[in-house]
């Protein structure tokens, strides 16, 4: 679960990391009222998960209630522009009104998980305010890393070493080990996969302040912090995730593409391989769909409807590796699902294995579906049917 900036900053504050004075507002009216109650120099920032807010004009200055209102209005009027990862863009539901800092320096500090080292890793640079990928390209020597031994955890020398190795401005030095420690505490206590402060601002009056906040929490650890349920509910799911949730599959188990060959398989690895097989056979994929364990009639039906009603699929390729389930049972489930569905009918190509797989294929053929023996054969058949 990715947190919005204002949520991340709330966690920072709890951990003792200084953040700018701010108010979270859901409407231009609320922004106007807040600035009226607290005159000053403010920044109005779109609360979205997508990056590139500045370039998209979604961060604006405001020095009066009226300016605040129109800034918020302009920001919220249009969604974030689409990019490759979010082809639909992202609607803006709220803004953060934040004190304008007199920034002297911008640094970067993050903790993430290194899969190979199997350790949390600090990444610090004296260059902040831009993507760390950009820093890595332009100033690779400025990046300092520290792999934390989880048996020991954080100790202040880590912050000192990072500050010296990244050559942070002297103004950061005294405060940095405590900030790094607080960030590690947050990372650890809330089960985060990423915590990022970019920029970590040094103000002209010598304060070190987290000017932005990016926090990704581990969904599998959320049960330990039921307090986040509300945030989770408030978070913007993209359309695919909403559809998946409605169909009763995991929000990561469904994703749409522009093609016309619908796919479904059991297991993420097999589902990806199924997509690849369709693409290799010259087809255009309509979706990724991992049906998960147990392909009973109810589940097959909701998955079928998910694809048929929400993608451009003109054929549906079901690829089930039975493993320890019986092929005839799966086949009966598929047939039952297709009898029950009220959605439009498209041709089904089905590959299934497992005990009694031959009986299964017979059941499918009898019901007018196209059983195949292998994944490759199924992919080819599905592409053939789609291109008719």
């Amino acid at each position, binding site marked *: 679960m990715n947190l919005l900036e204002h949520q991340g900053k709330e966690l920072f504050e709890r951990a003792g990391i200084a953040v700018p004075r701010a108010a979270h507002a859901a409407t231009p009216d609320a922004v106007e009222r807040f600035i009226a109650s607290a005159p000053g120099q403010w920044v109005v920032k779109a609360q979205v998960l997508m990056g590139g807010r500045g370039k998209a004009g979604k961060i604006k200055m405001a020095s009066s209630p009226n300016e605040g209102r129109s800034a918020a209005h302009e920001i919220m009027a249009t969604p974030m522009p689409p990019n490759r990862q979010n082809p639909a863009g992202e609607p803006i539901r709220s803004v953060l009104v934040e004190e304008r800092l007199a920034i002297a320096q911008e640094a970067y500090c993050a903790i993430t*998980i290194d899969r190979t080292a*199997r350790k949390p890793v600090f990444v610090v640079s004296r260059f902040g305010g831009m993507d760390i990928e950009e820093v890595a390209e332009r100033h690779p020597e400025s990046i300092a890393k520290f792999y934390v031994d989880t048996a020991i955890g954080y100790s202040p020398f880590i912050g000192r070493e990072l500050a010296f190795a990244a050559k942070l401005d002297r103004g950061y030095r005294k405060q940095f080990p405590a900030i790094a420690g607080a960030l590690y505490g947050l990372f650890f206590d809330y089960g985060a996969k990423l915590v990022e402060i970019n920029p970590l601002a040094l103000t002209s009056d010598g304060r070190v302040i987290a000017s932005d906040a990016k926090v990704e929490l581990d969904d599998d*650890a959320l049960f330990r912090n039921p307090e986040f349920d509300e945030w989770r509910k408030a978070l913007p799911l993209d359309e695919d995730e909403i559809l998946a949730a409605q169909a009763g599959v995991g929000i990561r188990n469904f994703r749409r593409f522009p093609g016309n060959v619908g796919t479904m398989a059991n297991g993420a690895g097999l589902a990806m391989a199924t997509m690849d097989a369709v*693409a290799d056979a010259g087809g255009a994929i309509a979706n990724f769909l991992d049906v998960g364990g147990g392909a009973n009639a109810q589940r097959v039906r909701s998955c079928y409807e998910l694809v048929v009603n929400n993608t451009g699929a003109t054929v549906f390729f079901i690829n089930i*590796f039975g493993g320890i389930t019986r092929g005839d049972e799966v086949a009966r489930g598929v047939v039952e699902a297709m009898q029950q569905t009220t959605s439009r009918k498209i041709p089904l190509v089905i590959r299934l294995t497992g005990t009694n797989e031959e009986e299964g294929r017979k059941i499918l053929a009898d019901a007018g579906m196209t059983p195949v023996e292998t994944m490759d054969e199924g992919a080819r058949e599905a592409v053939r049917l789609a291109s008719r």
Partner: protein
Amino acid sequence: MSIFLDKNSKVIVQGITGSEGSYHTERMVKYGTNIVGGVTPGKGGQKTPQGLPVFDTVKEAVDATGATHTCIFVPPPFAADALYEAHDAGITLAACITEGVPVHDMLEVVGTTAGMRIIGPNCPGLVSPGKALVGIMPGHVFKEGPIGLMSRSDTLTYEVVDLLSRAGLGQSTCVGVGGDPIIGTTFVECLREFKNDAQTRALVLCGEIGGSDEEDAAAFIAEHLPELPVVAFIGGRNAPPGKSLGHAGAIISGAFGTPESKIAAFAAAGVPVAQRPSEIPQLVAERLAVRA
């Protein structure tokens, strides 16, 4: 021979009286695995339907049976505790089937349980065909033979094994390493073991987009396994960047983790990458024939 697991490995099941634990215990016993008992706190002294003793703690189970291996079926909040308990009791290999273990739990566990090999979590377990099966894999698709296999996914593994077995290419040991970001045993660690296994004469590596396990494996192969035939497969070549597909592992971020980077790494190591699972048996057979 085989790696990690053989006919004599004494295996217990943590969570043996739970629904998953009892179901798969029955299957493992039927496969021929040397299951010597199980653990469910508070049910010590009972017997399973197979007549296996149930213990209150892993320590008691180990003391009574000499178990060295464990198969863990407990809900995600208790998986780390189960692993710590196994480690403390002197277990040397733990296959953690549980899906949804918090990633920080695994960071802590892998950093503090030296001496115990962990397979998984979020994995289907491992099989040394003809000898023993630990986990939830479908035993009937496996066949004993010279191919070592390691894989990040489950059903895809069964698919590949099925293809190999049908092509007459039996397996030494098949390891489902698990789909989570932090796993106990990576491809490289499997390779290190297979390197010393006399039975294994070729390897199949089923990777996925995301992470850098495949790149690390390719580098290891180039350096340490120049002689052993290896065939790779990368699932998810058509996945979009920045989005998780299914389990947590399959996400591309940055330059690493893309199918291109993985395929290039294998190419550099002289490892052919199958375009489709169905190509794998042929590629393996060719490489084995060249060596023979």
